[in-house]
């Protein structure tokens, strides 16, 4: 009954969006002409940067995107729980490791924030932080925040905390808030940088996992799957974007040379000169990203996602000079692996 209600609501909103298309076009026209108010001018600038024609072309996408989201939600809600369950000991160590990894990347983030502070006249706050941080905060504020966050990570790594306690959840939320502020400032320093994207996404779901463990321990395994979904979700949604924004162009190896204009290099040029190879690589990337949600139903699909993800990130480093071996994306792949793989294998052997 609830599924039917969900599907009916989704279709209702889809049809509503269809009817609102004309209204959305009016909004774009209004925003183009408007120059008052922070929010309006921000949106107007964004619409302008998209270009009027492009913005209008994207309106039909919103409807299709809504359907894609609903189908995705339906898939997640309808899939059965996997039979294997994570043990408390495994999860506790996984959480320790996650916060321990933050200790590795915080000094690097501080360095990046300091560089941005030196160029503070170029600071452009994004929409939400623009209400709070209209100007770049002081170095003291940034250093204090990073140190505070470092202390929380060290607490999780070294102390004897109880996962099912409120303190673990509260500290994870405080850490998440600190990272949110840092990344808001980090993004305000220039164009988008995805260095910490999957790590931040995992951080959101880590707080949810600790909340579930605190309030309803019986659902902890679902919380852990959600935490993993925060990582593979980044791949899935970037795959969807490739499909929606580039469409079939993404699979055309002849267009690889356009990427090389932004990321020149010897390997990129080689790929551009071999459209069959580059076309295959682009197709494989899209396939691995779009298939990543299979992990929700089949936990061992993680080996495919993590293995391909490893080659993908090392490949973008080699060919496009994006990321690198030290990227947080690579470390996050580790958390996709099922925690109890050895136990399950042992059980299967016993059963056989």
């Amino acid at each position, binding site marked *: 009954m609830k599924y039917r209600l969900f599907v009916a609501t989704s279709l209702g909103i889809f049809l509503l969006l269809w009817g609102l298309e004309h209204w959305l076009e009016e909004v774009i026209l209004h925003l183009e002409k408007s120059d008052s108010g922070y929010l309006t001018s921000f949106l107007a600038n*964004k619409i302008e940067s998209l270009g009027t024609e492009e913005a209008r072309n994207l309106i039909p996408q*919103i409807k299709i*995107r809504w359907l894609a*989201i609903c189908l*995705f*939600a339906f898939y*997640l*809600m309808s899939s059965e729980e996997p039979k294997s369950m994570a043990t408390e000991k495994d999860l506790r160590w996984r959480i320790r490791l996650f916060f321990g990894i933050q200790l590795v990347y915080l000094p690097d983030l501080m360095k*990046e924030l300091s*560089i*941005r502070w*030196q*160029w503070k*006249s*170029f600071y*452009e706050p*994004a*929409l*939400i*932080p623009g209400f709070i941080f209209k100007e770049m905060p002081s170095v003291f504020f940034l250093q204090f925040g990073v140190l505070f966050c470092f202390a929380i990570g060290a607490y999780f790594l070294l102390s004897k905390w109880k996962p099912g306690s409120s303190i673990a959840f509260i500290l994870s939320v405080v850490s998440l808030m600190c990272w*949110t502020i840092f*990344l808001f400032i980090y*993004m305000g*320093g*220039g*164009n*988008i*940088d*995805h260095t910490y*994207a999957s790590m*931040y*996404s995992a951080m*959101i*779901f880590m707080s*949810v996992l600790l909340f*579930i463990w605190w309030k309803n321990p019986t*659902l902890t395994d*679902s919380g852990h799957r*959600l935490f993993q*979904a*925060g990582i593979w*979700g980044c791949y*899935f*949604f*970037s795959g*969807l*974007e*490739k499909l*929606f*924004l*580039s469409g079939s*162009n*993404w699979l055309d190896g002849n*267009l690889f040379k*356009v*990427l090389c*204009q*932004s*990321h020149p290099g010897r390997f990129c040029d080689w790929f551009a000169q071999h459209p069959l190879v580059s076309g295959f690589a682009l197709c494989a990337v899209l396939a691995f990203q779009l298939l990543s949600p299979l992990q*929700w139903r089949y936990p061992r699909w993680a080996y495919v996602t993590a293995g391909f993800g490893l080659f993908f990130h090392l490949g973008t480093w080699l060919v496009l000079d994006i990321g690198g071996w030290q990227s947080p994306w690579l470390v996050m792949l580790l958390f996709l692996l099922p925690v109890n793989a050895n136990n399950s294998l042992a059980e299967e052997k016993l059963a056989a």
Partner: protein
Amino acid sequence: MFRQRLIPLFLVFVFGIPFLMLTDLFPLHRYGMFARIPISAPESPVKILVYQDGNWTELSSGSPYLDAGILPRKSLEAFGDSLKESQFRLALLSTFKKMPDSIALEKIENNTKIRRILYP
């Protein structure tokens, strides 16, 4: 059981709203920025200016100052993406065949020109 099935909706919410919004309303979720094959090389809001004989002029492809006449577009990208100052400065200056009197970056913000001198 019902609560268990509601958990995934949180996942859909976190990823779904920025996905529907299309643009960078949420600064931590700009999927489109690394998904699109660009039609042309990206334009940078930052200009490179050179000062010679009492005049500031914008650096362009084919400039006699540049080695092989190639505009250091990657340097501009480095500026926009990671703002690694030392790397950016080195990358930019290394593209000059001969040095003008001065090199600066300029960005127009709210009808105001912001200029930073890079060289000397």
